């Protein structure tokens, strides 16, 4: 199978235009570290951003960075760190979970809207993504947004590109708003809470004026208790003060520890990258998004009929659940739960035969699917870009 690695936008445009003319179905990717995600699709050739690399603009005092889409995330982070800045949304790294190798690209961060624990405070990747350039399915070079963070000029195609999994266009350049890396991070760990108590504690912390930037709960294996994590970041004076206030606010939950330094950072990284579920080998992994206070009830319903393991991020609103890879890997149970409690479930990790036999992304009502089909056709009328990766026929 041919793999195209365009060196610039013009190159990409020619490749895609030709594919559109011939009806060649293209697999759209960066370095392929997320290849085992989504619906398995059959394509005739590949187009990869791996040769489109390099930072094209970085203005630390304007809080903005642009990079070609194939630039490794690592390089973007390194360049930002040298000026004391970071990507605010803390993009997750799927490699450990999926068992893949290679360097994840900044384009994929945009295309998959990858965020991490700080999403509750700083927004998702889509909230920091302020500009894109891409080649649509007709081979046309299109831009939307730009390099300034306040911009309401025209329809916001930037948002459509974020999380579209390469089905609308081949991203060539992305521009993100960045933020200063905080001087100090401290984490309050509460031990021994069950899921409901934990989400209640997280809700109190998130409802406080202390700008919590991480709120996770990891149940113990025996499920009788767990570790509840609340993160503060900021200037030293501020974190010290806020941590004291937070302890006072949450004093009825006893058994509190303060976690700091490298260990605490590693812990948040394991929350971000779902390392807490990765050691379970062949189990399927689901990502469930719901209203935070409904998380524990949703999980309880799922756990009644499935051998499930789970933990919570985003104050309870994001639940990572692993299930056995038998039958539908728990799809019918999970989808029944999301229908009952609201939200949606995505099958993130499972063998290809399971992913091709069911809806990897939450099925949407007919009216929304009609809009989805229309939008797909408006970017990619021949249906050549990552066909079927998100939904059948999209």
């Amino acid at each position, binding site marked *: 199978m041919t793999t195209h690695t365009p060196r610039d936008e013009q190159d990409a445009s020619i490749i895609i235009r030709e594919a559109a003319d011939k009806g060649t179905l293209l697999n759209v990717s960066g370095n392929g570290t997320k290849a085992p995600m989504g619906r398995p699709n059959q394509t005739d050739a590949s187009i990869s951003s791996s040769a489109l690399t390099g930072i094209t603009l970085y203005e630390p005092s304007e809080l903005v960075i642009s990079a070609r889409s194939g630039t490794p995330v690592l390089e973007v982070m390194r360049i930002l760190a040298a000026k004391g800045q970071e990507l605010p949304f803390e993009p997750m790294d799927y490699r450990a979970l999926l068992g893949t190798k290679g360097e994840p690209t900044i384009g994929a961060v945009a295309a998959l809207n990858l965020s991490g624990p700080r999403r509750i405070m700083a927004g998702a990747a889509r909230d920091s993504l302020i500009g894109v350039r891409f080649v649509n399915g007709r081979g046309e070079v299109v831009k939307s947004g730009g390099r300034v963070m306040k911009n*309401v*000029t025209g329809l916001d195609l930037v948002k459509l590109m974020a999380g579209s999994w390469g089905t609308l266009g081949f991203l060539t350049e992305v521009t993100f708003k960045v933020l200063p890396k905080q001087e100090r991070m401290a984490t309050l760990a509460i031990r021994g809470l069950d899921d409901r108590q934990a989400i209640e504690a997280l809700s109190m912390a998130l409802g406080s*004026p202390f700008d919590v930037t991480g709120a996770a709960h990891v149940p113990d294996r025996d499920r009788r208790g767990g570790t509840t994590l609340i993160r503060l970041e900021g200037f030293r004076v501020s974190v010290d003060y806020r941590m004291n206030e937070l302890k006072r606010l949450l004093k009825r939950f006893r058994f509190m520890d303060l976690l700091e330094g490298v260990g605490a950072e590693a812990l948040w990284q394991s929350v971000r990258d779902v390392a807490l579920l990765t050691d379970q080998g062949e189990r399927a992994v689901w990502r469930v998004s719901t209203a935070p206070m409904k998380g524990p009830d949703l999980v309880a319903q799922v756990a009644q009929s499935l051998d499930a393991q789970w933990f919570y991020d985003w104050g309870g609103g994001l639940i990572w659940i692993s299930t056995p890879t038998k039958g539908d890997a728990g799809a019918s149970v999970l989808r029944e739960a999301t229908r009952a409690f609201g939200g949606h479930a995505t099958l993130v990790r499972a063998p290809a035969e399971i992913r091709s036999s069911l809806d990897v992304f939450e099925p949407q009502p007919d009216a929304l699917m009609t809009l989805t089909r229309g939008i797909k056709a408006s970017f990619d009328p021949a249906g050549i870009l990552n066909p079927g990766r998100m939904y059948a026929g999209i």
Partner: protein
Amino acid sequence: MTIAFPKPDETVLARRKEIVEGLGRLVASEALIVSEDERRAFETDGLTSYRQMPLAVVLPSTTEEVAAIMRFCHEHGVKVVPRGAGTSLCGGAIPQEDAIVLGVAKMNRVLDVNFEGRTARVQSGITNLGISQAVAHEGFFYAPDPSSQLACTIAGNIAMNSGGAHCLKYGVTTNNLLGVTLVLLDGTVVEIGGEHLDSPGYDLLGLICGSEGQLGVVTEAVVRILRAAEGARPALFGFSTVEDAGACTAAIIGAGIIPVALEYMDKPAIQICEAFAHAGYPLDVEAMLIVEVEGSDAEIDDMLRRIVAIAEPFRPKTMKVSQSEAESAAIWKGRKSAFGATGRIADYICMDGTIPTGQLPYVLNRIDEIVKSYGLGVANVFHAGDGNLHPLVMFNTNVPGEMEKAEKAGEDILKLCVEVGGCLTGEHGVGIEKRDLMTYQFNATDLEQQMRVRGVFDPRWLLNPAKVFPLEGRLAA
């Protein structure tokens, strides 16, 4: 009056009686406005120099009524101009003679507040401030705060993706919106998003936000509510040069401090606001920054100490950290009265371009030159942290030709914003005002892609069709 409206469709005008009767069967009689006198209240919005009398105005009370009206208009080929409170500064809600106005202002209830989950579900006609007021008793607020927040509706905020003075920290509407109930042109009602933080599939919520009423009518919204900070305090810095003020802004952000607000005023703006509000602004400086930080008293002290240290190398002529609630209120009173105070001494148009903040001194000098070349004056107040400019180009309506000159100057300023890497509009929207300038920021391919997406929702250009896209070069159905 240089912006054209499309020629009204004579066949629709001829069917006015029949259309009004049809609408009358869908809503209670008091919800349908037909008489010329009453329709006049809807002929313009915040861009008052343009006026168009609509065919009729409907003010539905429920999502079902909105759906019935949309379905009727879809079936009968009648254009629909959605409207919130009509505060748009870019003419986003100005009607057309062959269109009906569909106003959501009657649908203004809070439906559900969930403090534990930090969300509120509201009807879309509620005012922006109304949401904050409904959650204030628990110490919460709704973050985006456009200066029209007393009057403007969340429906309009969603349509324009409105910002405000505090978006450097809290983001704009799109970053604070979790879900909408959207009525499509054919009357279909769809739910997008909900109380969770992200949605499956394409980011339709992100697309709807800022779509200026061209894709559908939002009747309900789920928004994020946040716990307010313990306190906030501004400091004021006056500089001898525009360059110093610009460099100080960059230095604050470069030092890792994101103030909750970072506002810039130039000399004319300072003079105008001080004369009106007696805020204690320095009159001998060329530029002034208002920097506000949030937190506990100790945190605020720490942060302001840092900011003062950063500002010192730029030789501020005035440095004043607010010492009391009254002083804070006075500092903000001046800034917040900028538009009103300017309106007392001149007619003005308010521009809204955004520029990369590094270009600030260059752009401000150029704006001055541009405006002078038309023989007019300008006052600049804007959000310095994010480069969102609000030059107020002043003129006198009674002098023939001055308004046209002001419009031309405004156009030149917006082109300048694009030229230096910025955009035409940071938070007000395109509307009719910037419609014909879109080709400066976007090429034909960019615009066609946007129009094709628009066409998915409204292939026949019935929803707010005079706006956003230049009349020339439109994609037909």
